[in-house]
């Protein structure tokens, strides 16, 4: 069985459409920041804002790299033949979410005049994530659980660095998507929900 990036079909197209519309709002907000800054920049008064926008693009690039890695992990693991059909179905839903995140982030970077970071090769991701060591479905789920936990915390931990409120909202949305993935996977592993409050961040 081979699973390519194009195989993933979002389970709920209306939810995806709604997400993309919301992401579009964030794109609009970020674009407005750049446009609004332009006249002031010409007058030599908007350097801090431009610096802020540049910082936001840096945050977006890191987030995009994270999504590329997640997409590769689900794609490669999904094509490994280790997953049962039911688990593969869920993995493909999650893969679709990560692709939605990737597209939204890449669009924002382009809107801001940047060049979105490109994904690495599958061979690089396989080596970096030690995917060759995955022997069972359980191994795959454990790795995915760790990556989703890390991704959730990465988004939550960077919100404070964002200058644009629209982007902060988008990061909150994405982090909760990742948290849902983590919760489902953690439950599948039979792990209890963490007792303390503030599980992430």
């Amino acid at each position, binding site marked *: 069985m081979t699973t390519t990036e194009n195989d993933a079909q979002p389970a709920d197209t209306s939810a995806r459409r709604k997400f993309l519309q919301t992401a579009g709002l964030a794109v609009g907000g970020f674009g407005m920041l750049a446009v609004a800054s332009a006249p002031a920049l010409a007058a030599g008064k908007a350097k801090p804002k431009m610096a802020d926008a540049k910082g936001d693009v*840096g945050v977006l690039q*890191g987030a995009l790299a*994270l999504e590329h890695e997640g997409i590769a992990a689900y794609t490669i693991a999904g094509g490994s033949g280790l997953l049962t059909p039911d688990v593969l179905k869920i993995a493909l839903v999650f893969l679709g979410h990560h692709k939605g995140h990737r597209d939204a982030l890449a669009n924002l970077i382009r809107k801001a005049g940047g060049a979105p970071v490109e994904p690495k090769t599958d061979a690089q991701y396989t080596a*970096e994530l030690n995917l060759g060591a995955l022997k069972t479905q359980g191994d795959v789920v454990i790795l995915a659980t760790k990556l989703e936990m*890390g991704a959730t*915390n*990465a988004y939550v931990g960077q919100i*404070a660095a964002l200058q644009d409120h629209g982007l902060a909202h988008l990061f909150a949305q994405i982090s909760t998507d990742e948290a849902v993935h983590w919760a489902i996977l953690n439950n599948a592993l039979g792990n209890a929900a963490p007792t303390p409050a503030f599980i992430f961040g």
Partner: protein
Amino acid sequence: MATTRIHRLVLAFPAGLAVVAGALAAQAAGDPVAGKAQYEGTCGGCHSVDANRIGPMHRGVVGRRPGSVAGYDYSPAVRRLGGLWTTARLDQWLQGPQALAPGAKMYLSVADPAKRADIIAYLASVSPPAEPVRGARHQRARTVDAGAKR
């Protein structure tokens, strides 16, 4: 000549003690076992101990020169940092990477001091122990370098 050597050792000793004491204090303050879980949860989205991913690998980070892991594409900001990653400097980094190295690729910060201490204790546990005296002069010289503008 022997006197000079002894003189150097005497001068180096307090610096060496300071390095070791600093490292021990940071390790004592944090719990490396709890730090492993914190590291995997907080840093694991981008970092691994033994592989460069979105961020560079972390084995050996304590005592290492910033921007020095082979095969990782660092930002100019981190390459320019100079000095060494000490436990104190890592604590500063985790409080706000952009404050320490504006333009660095990392933006995530860890606000909780106890959590930072645990993570740093774990990072120290996957780093080789500091050489007490022999490396102290070297380290002191490089740390001084880090304060100089380049």
